[in-house]
């Protein structure tokens, strides 16, 4: 039976971990960009297998978490317009915005529906021709092509009541912004596996070329990540940073061309605000003027109160990799997955949620 193999995982993991320990001599800080990686690292207790001189930090790779409060507020305001249905991925619904959440808007009567894909959102638009159906488009290069496809489909089928509030974000510009700020010294980056399936590895090559920082693309299985850490340590110890693909079963340097073509047909890069990071040039995707009849930001004019942040929540620092969840005084006390204060505790890809859900038994009281 297949599940017996897992015992061998254990052995192999031990081998890679001891190779890493032998190889690694200096204290280093690695950042896993992607929230999916943070979850796998915590879920499998990978940090327990690594030597103490290797520190892991999570980065801004959780699409729900990096969505700015102003964008959330906009989504909530849209949901409260008459005759509208707002469709969204599930995690978004519980994230607190400046004044309220989609969940609270729904309880007050807004028609907000959780969808698993843009296909579901289109279907809702087809079935409710008398209502405006708005899809809250969040996500990175992984989701943007599917949203682009939905818009093209809506155009082809003449579904005029469908629109998208595009909060999509691009990953390479934000990595550049973090490195440029110099706020945190990172020695190596685990690049986002699923995103790179679409973009390919080339857009990330600047990390090693321009900033001389080790980088490798990893899959999401625990052994993938360990192997990626091994490659990063080797690059750092040898002083030879370069882009390595440790996820070759899924990644091509040039990426998924048809998906990129779809994305570029409908969207164009624009400056956008990231939670905790601020405005990053050309790091967002807005809908091109040709498709503006599907752009919720253009169709609906709403007056917004200025966005505000919850000062106590440290999600911003966590997303900039300057703090870890346990450094937040609210972590595991006032803020838990049942009563989340910031998005990093809500999202299934959020760092706080991962640190909390997979905390270690020995330290359960200080919740690390």
């Amino acid at each position: 039976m297949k599940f017996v193999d897992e015992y061998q995982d254990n052995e192999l993991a031990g081998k890679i971990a001891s190779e890493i320990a032998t190889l690694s001599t200096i204290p280093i800080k690695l950042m896993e960009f992607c929230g999916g990686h943070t979850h796998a690292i915590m879920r499998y207790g990978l940090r327990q297998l690594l030597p103490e001189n290797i520190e892991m930090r999570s980065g801004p790779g959780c699409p729900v978490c990096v969505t700015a409060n102003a964008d959330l507020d906009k989504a909530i305001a849209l949901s409260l317009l008459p005759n509208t249905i707002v469709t969204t991925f599930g995690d978004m619904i519980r994230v607190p915005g400046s004044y309220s959440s989609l969940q609270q808007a729904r309880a007050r009567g807004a028609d907000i529906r959780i969808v698993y894909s843009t296909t579901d959102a289109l279907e809702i638009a087809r079935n409710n021709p008398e209502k405006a159906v708005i899809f809250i488009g969040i996500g990175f290069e992984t989701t943007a092509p599917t949203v682009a496809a939905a818009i093209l489909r809506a155009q082809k089928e003449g579904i005029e009541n469908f629109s998208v509030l595009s909060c999509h974000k691009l990953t390479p510009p934000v990595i550049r912004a973090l490195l440029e700020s110099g706020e945190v010294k990172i020695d190596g980056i685990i690049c986002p596996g699923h995103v790179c399936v679409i973009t390919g590895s080339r857009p990330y090559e600047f990390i090693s070329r321009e900033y001389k920082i080790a980088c490798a693309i990893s899959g999401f299985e625990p052994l993938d990540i360990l192997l990626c850490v091994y490659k990063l340590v080797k690059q750092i110890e040898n002083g030879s940073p370069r882009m390595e693909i440790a996820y070759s079963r899924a990644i091509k340097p040039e990426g998924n061309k048809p998906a990129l073509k779809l994305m570029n047909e409908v969207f164009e890069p624009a400056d956008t605000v990231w939670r905790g990071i601020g405005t990053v040039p050309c790091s967002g995707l807005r809908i091109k003027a040709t498709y503006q009849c599907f752009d919720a930001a253009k169709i609906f004019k709403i007056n917004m109160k200025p966005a505000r942040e919850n000062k106590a929540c440290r999600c911003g620092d966590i997303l900039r990799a300057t703090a870890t969840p346990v450094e937040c005084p609210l972590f595991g006390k006032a803020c838990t997955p049942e009563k989340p204060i910031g998005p990093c505790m809500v999202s299934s890809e959020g760092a706080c949620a991962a640190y909390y859900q997979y905390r270690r038994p020995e330290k359960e009281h200080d919740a690390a």
Partner: protein
Amino acid sequence: MTQDENDIILLAHGSGGKLSHELVENRFLPFLSNPVLAKLDDSAVFEVGGRIAFTTDSYVVNPLFFPGGDIGKLAVCGTVNDLSMSGAVPLYMSLALIIEEGLPMKELEQVLQSIKATADETGTQIITGDTKVVSHGQADKLFINTAGIGIVPDDINVSGAGARIGDKIILSGTIGDHGIAIMSLREGLKFSVPVESDCQPLNKLVQQMLEVSSTIRCLRDPTRGGLATTLNEIATQSQKGIFINEAAVPVKEAVRAACELLGLDPLYIANEGKLVAVVESSEADKILASMKRNLCGKDAAIIGEITAEHAGKTIMKTRLGSSRMLDMLSGDLLPRIC
């Protein structure tokens, strides 16, 4: 329109009038009839002796039909399994349907057929029932509620609180099958080996286990919330610690693949035909061997034990040998975005 397409549930079927009677007599009784039900009195009157176990549950599933089962089978198995988990022999059940107008009669009959087949398989009888029809949009096709009564033999006492330090934890088979079967259907995922729901009655397996050993302390079926949630419930109830070995927990390859794709964890995914047993350590192998002889328990495995440490908590040794807390499910299971 064909005859069949017109043969649908109308609001009038729930009016209590002629159509309602017709529905009961022509559609329900042919499938479910037994001497108690056939009287069609306001209550079922019957005799039982001894300690009684009594349970109820409601069933809402979209789609109604899925690989490995349907809402009818689910409704019978759910109640039979709840009774079995208290060591009871299930005997009688009630069946209440809330039907959305427009449900094709053919689908209703298919569900009734499957209720009948599952009830027969488990040796239970449906002895009272009710039907309501609601207008379009007020229900999603068909909701079912069942309640069940069973007898608990004198010498049987199984409860979550009964777990003792050193006891072994046995899982009756692979986890996540039901949840992934439903989710892949909804998401339009196709796998080379399609995942079927594990929806099945466990009463025979339980009877068999109780026959070979009198040291079965606790039985639970890990339905919604998955194995992780069930283990946490046992830990809380017994105020003992639970330690499990992830590598020992059987998961089908297709379920694992689907989980990786969707960003889900099989430990939190619903099962509809699995049980967790806490048993005296010295009898564990014997009980395991008897479980493996039953088709519902062929993949059974010892996955962990009850500990004195970490009272009220579940600790898991991961596939890579590290250990961490295993929490209850919080919120909904949602596929990842990224």
